[in-house]
């Protein structure tokens, strides 16, 4: 079979870039252990208020875990609880969130924290807050008439 020289060049180029991109995803998933924010952890959406850790939303210091703090958020139409929270700069935090009613979004603007909160599921994200500042949390899943007013704030303080 005759293949033009140029065709060989772009086939090799295309296949190589594909392999590189897929390897990055593979390393991220299987070596670094990254997974989707909502990964098999479930909850009864009607009993969120009485189920730990969602009975006490907010920032909590924890011992003996890979992270220093747990930041618990409960979303419901059309607010987050807590409505504002302070996190010390440099803290390794596990953000844990769920919803009591419909699907909500949980996006901390300007960061990689961006999760979908589904009723019955717990979404989690571990990160280190290493830049001080105010970070706005917005709902990015249309949840009803008050969707655009649904927000909260994380203050990363020195």
């Amino acid at each position, binding site marked *: 079979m005759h293949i*033009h020289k*140029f*065709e060989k*060049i*772009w086939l090799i*180029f*295309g296949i190589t*870039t594909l392999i590189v*991109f897929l390897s*990055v995803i593979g390393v991220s998933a299987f070596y670094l252990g990254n997974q989707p924010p909502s990964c098999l952890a479930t909850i009864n959406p009607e009993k969120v208020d009485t189920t730990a850790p969602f009975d006490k939303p907010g920032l909590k210091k924890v011992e003996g875990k890979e992270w220093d703090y747990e930041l618990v958020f409960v979303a419901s139409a059309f607010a987050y609880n807590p409505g504002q929270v302070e996190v010390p700069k440099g803290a390794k935090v596990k953000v844990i969130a769920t919803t009591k009613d419909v699907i909500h979004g949980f996006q901390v603007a*300007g*960061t*990689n924290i961006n999760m979908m909160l589904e009723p019955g599921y717990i979404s989690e994200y571990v*990160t*280190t*807050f*290493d*830049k001080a500042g105010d970070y706005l949390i917005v709902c990015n899943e249309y949840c009803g008439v008050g969707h655009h007013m649904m927000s909260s704030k994380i203050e990363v303080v020195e």
Partner: protein
Amino acid sequence: MAQPGIGKKTQTKVEDQSSLKGTLASVFLLGFFLIVTWVGVYFLFVDRF
């Protein structure tokens, strides 16, 4: 009478139909665009917390 049109040979360069130079250029243009945007998003992800 003068007939200026007659006897004049018009020569147009016809490139080899099987040339793939333009295709190669457009493939790599698209390829580098994909790589640059992918790397841009990757470093944005790495830089943020």
